[in-house]
């Protein structure tokens, strides 16, 4: 079977062990991005803590509720729901209220009064802001590009932070920076051809740093960059692409990490250790390292110390609130 069902030996009756479960967004655990990052936390917990894990993939929004209910019936000690989409039709709220004894963690979600629902949220604009600044600083053409898979908050928050970061650079240095692609969306997370065309369009428009916020479609951008033959680079999202896709390390400047793997793992570890379930929202920020820029990898020596220092300053500014990554500078 696929990795998700690794230890699903079909008898979820084992109450003695801790059972951690997750239900995917409309997508698979191997989306190279969002779902994969979350599921990674379960796998890590299985490897390191020896807990049992169980995953259910949803093929459409209609599957959310049955999948969550199935997890409750399977006796999961905690169930992760991955993605804001669980808000549609109030699925998360209803399932949580209907099963007061079960424990749920909702990634990118929120708590509207449920007693058994812990939200995990991320301030992705913070790290994207840094990425935007870095991109603008790194760019020789002073044109940077970004595009999204779909025009949804979970995507546009990255793009917005990125744009603001780049504009911050412009304001600070007085060098005009062009951000292209704020309205570029593929329309799905599958059409590699279109994603490549969008990337090529941005390269043609002079962009030499591209920030694709489109799940697995970054491979299309990578190819567009390679084909252009220039020195353009891209930025990853969710996971550190330079690590997960080592073959792309040479064009990946850095990645805007959404460290769900760790957050998920931490929740499981706490519960498995016998701590009580709490509904305190976990908010991943630059401050708590829930989100961050990856290391620069192969680009470490191409990013000047000056910029690195500047990024640290900005980070501090964001943490202390003096810079609002969501406000245009």
């Amino acid at each position, binding site marked *: *079977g696929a990795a998700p069902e690794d230890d699903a030996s079909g008898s979820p009756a084992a109450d003695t062990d801790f059972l951690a479960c997750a239900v995917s967004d409309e997508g698979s655990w191997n989306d190279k991005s969002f779902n994969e990052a979350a599921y990674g936390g379960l796998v890590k917990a299985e490897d390191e803590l020896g807990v049992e894990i169980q995953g259910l993939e949803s*093929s*459409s*929004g209609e*599957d959310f509720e049955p999948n969550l209910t199935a997890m409750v019936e399977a006796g999961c000690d905690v169930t992760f729901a991955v993605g804001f989409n669980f808000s549609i*039709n*109030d699925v998360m709220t209803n399932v949580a209220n209907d099963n007061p004894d079960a424990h749920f963690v909702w990634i990118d979600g929120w708590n509207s009064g449920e007693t058994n629902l812990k939200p995990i949220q991320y301030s992705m604009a913070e790290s994207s802001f840094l990425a935007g600044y870095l991109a603008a600083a790194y760019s020789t053409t002073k044109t940077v590009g970004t595009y999204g898979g779909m025009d949804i908050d979970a995507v546009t928050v990255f793009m917005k932070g990125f744009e603001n970061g780049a504009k911050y650079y412009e304001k600070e240095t007085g060098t005009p920076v062009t951000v292209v692609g704020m309205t570029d969306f593929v329309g799905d997370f599958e059409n590699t051809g279109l994603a490549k065309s969008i990337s090529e369009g941005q390269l043609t428009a002079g962009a030499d740093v591209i920030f694709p916020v489109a799940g697995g479609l970054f491979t299309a951008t990578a190819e567009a960059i390679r084909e252009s033959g220039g020195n353009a680079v891209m930025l990853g999202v969710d996971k550190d692409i330079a690590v997960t896709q080592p073959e792309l390390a040479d064009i990946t400047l850095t990645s805007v990490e959404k460290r769900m793997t760790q957050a998920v793992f931490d929740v499981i570890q706490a519960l498995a250790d016998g701590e009580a379930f709490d509904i305190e929202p976990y908010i991943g920020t630059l401050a708590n390292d829930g989100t961050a820029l990856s290391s620069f990898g192969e680009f470490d020596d191409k990013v000047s110390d000056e910029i690195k220092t500047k990024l640290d300053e900005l980070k501090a500014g964001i943490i202390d609130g003096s810079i609002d990554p969501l406000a245009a500078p």
Partner: protein
Amino acid sequence: MSTAQAAPQAPTPAEAGRPRWNDVLHDIAAGGFVRTIAAVILSLAVASILIVFTNDDVLGTLSYFFSRPGDFFVAAGQAIGNAYAALFRGAIYNYTATSFEAGIRPLVESLRFAGPLIAAGLGVALTFRAGLFNIGGQGQLVMGAIWSAWASFQLHLPWGLHLIVAMIFGFVGAGLWAGIAGFLKAKTGAHEVIVTIMMNYIAVSLATYLMRTPVLHDMDGGNNPTTRPPDETAVFPRILGEGFDLRVSFILCLVAVIVYWWLMERSSLGFRLRMVGLNPDAARAAGVNVGRMYITAMVLSGLFIGLAGINQSLGRDGNFGPGIDSGIGFDAITVALLGSSTAPGVLLAGILFGMFRAASPTMQLADVSPEILGVIQGLIVLFIAAPPLVRAIFRFLPKPREVTELNTRSKPQLEAKEEVQ
């Protein structure tokens, strides 16, 4: 006297009226029922192989197969047993549940999923009968859903009336959307396959756009494209109480089956639709306006699919997003084909597909990945649709009493092709 019955043993007209029992039995055995069962058995057999060889436990035993082959067979048996037990538990009756109510929930869930599949399947089936191929289920469903949704929260009407008005909106939206393809076909000859494919994409984009604007969206509720939740007065009530999510819309889907049956088998309009589907030239010569029938067929198809969309939008208390179709529009094609475009066939095929959808979580928990489930579904359809193959494997099944015609149509098309550049 002259006679056309070349065979002396052919029945005279008088005795032909009465069915003969051996023929009836023969037809049952050769036709639908036994063969369908055989096809399901066959596909489950093939599926078992897939389940065994994608199961991690089983694969684990393969590494030492030659030292302890027994393990393999035990594990394989377990994998298959678990998978089908899960199928049964997930789609029909959960025997591990503590109460009957919980036990029967899977069956209710199957029916809940089946409802829109049946309605949309009928819509696609109708176009097949009229000689058209409506691939546009997705777009029509989305239109039915957003039009009814609009009425469900933008209009504020008393209980009962509101639901009916919202439904009418849904029917109008889906019917009009489908009608465009019929209209273009009738007036310009545009091939409905192209138009409906394109209209799917357009419908989703349009719906997404509207789900960002105040038309459908609650502008205080974030920027993700969603509708607003319907007013309570416009939501289908539950049939079996709060414990089950089966709603009155399911009954409407069953009513749709009867309506479809009446329309296609009994009504004169259905007679004309079928006539156009089988021989448009003869239909035209018999006074039927073929173009008008194409429009009618598409609009009617849109109404059935619209019911599926209404079921999706008003069969819930909350909002929805552009993914509301969730594959129903496409599965409807398979349902229609599997049900050979007849009312009872579509009903059964819809329920079968509903069961697969309902069983997906339990099957996944039993280590059958959703992809394998998809493969099993495909195999069942293929085997049911391939009587000669099933007969070749189960040799005891009799051949149907089919005769085939060597009929050719040599006359050029009645309507001279318009040359267009």
